């Protein structure tokens, strides 16, 4: 057990625990705050994976925007201070069964794959992931088209969200 492994196990366990709390907590504000904890754990996983840029973007986009949006939405759609009725529907056992089967199936399938327990190659010295990522996102031989399409998608989502949520008096 190296230090990195112990760190990964702690972070991974915390991420999964907060993920579980997200789907089981009754109070939706708490669920959203647990989501923040999960997202923070995922950002740490990115940092362990040497993707520092993605870790910071995860915090900016997910925690700074998406989680805040969730908290706002929960506050705007509350009828009373306390939630009424059960937090899960009548078929929750089917959902739990499907989730467990999915997990078991994925693990079983991955186990039979040859690259399952592969080790990471060392990062060559002088390799600048941020630089490479920027080049890949903007070069015509890279991913400039998906990048532009994503920006159009964001614009469409912005307009659509404003239109949908706008209160026509």
């Amino acid at each position, binding site marked *: 057990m190296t230090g990195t492994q112990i760190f*990964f196990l702690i972070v*991974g366990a915390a*991420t*999964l625990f907060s*993920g579980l709390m*997200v*789907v089981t907590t009754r109070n*939706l504000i708490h*669920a959203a705050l647990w*989501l923040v904890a*999960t*997202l923070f754990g*995922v950002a740490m*996983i990115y940092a*362990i*994976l040497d*993707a520092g840029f*993605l870790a910071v973007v*995860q915090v900016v*986009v997910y925690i700074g925007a*998406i989680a805040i949006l*969730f908290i*706002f*939405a*929960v506050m705007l*759609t509350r*009828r009373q201070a306390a939630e009424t009725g059960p*937090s899960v*529907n009548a*078929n*929750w056992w*089917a*959902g*739990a069964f*499907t989730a467990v089967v*999915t*997990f078991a199936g994925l693990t079983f399938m*991955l186990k039979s794959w040859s*690259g*399952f*327990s*592969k*080790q*990471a190659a060392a*990062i*060559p010295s002088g390799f600048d992931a941020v630089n*490479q*990522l920027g080049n*890949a*996102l903007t070069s015509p031989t*890279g*991913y400039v088209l998906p*990048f532009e399409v994503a*920006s159009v*998608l*964001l614009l*469409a*989502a912005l307009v659509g969200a*404003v239109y*949908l949520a706008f209160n026509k008096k």
Partner: protein
Amino acid sequence: MIPLSWYLILAAALFSIGLFGVLARRNAVAILLGVELMLNAVNINLVSFWRYGDISLMAGQVFAIIVFAVAAAEVAVGLALVISVYRRRNTVVAEDLDLLKW
């Protein structure tokens, strides 16, 4: 060091937790929370495949960024829909929204 399998299993577990949230929760906002967990699980996979594959191919990180954009768009439109539904029906419980079910 950490083998790839740890990341994949973590991602699979997170995906399954999200799937349970989507299938079992009654509140529409909670369902969207589950969707976020699933998207994050996918992102962990993408980034770990980037790290454990050829590191100079940036496809994994680029796809992760596209997933960020899609997640942001999905949340914005999804929550706008939820708020719009709440205004009309005064509920966000998914099983009460059954106008199309006959």
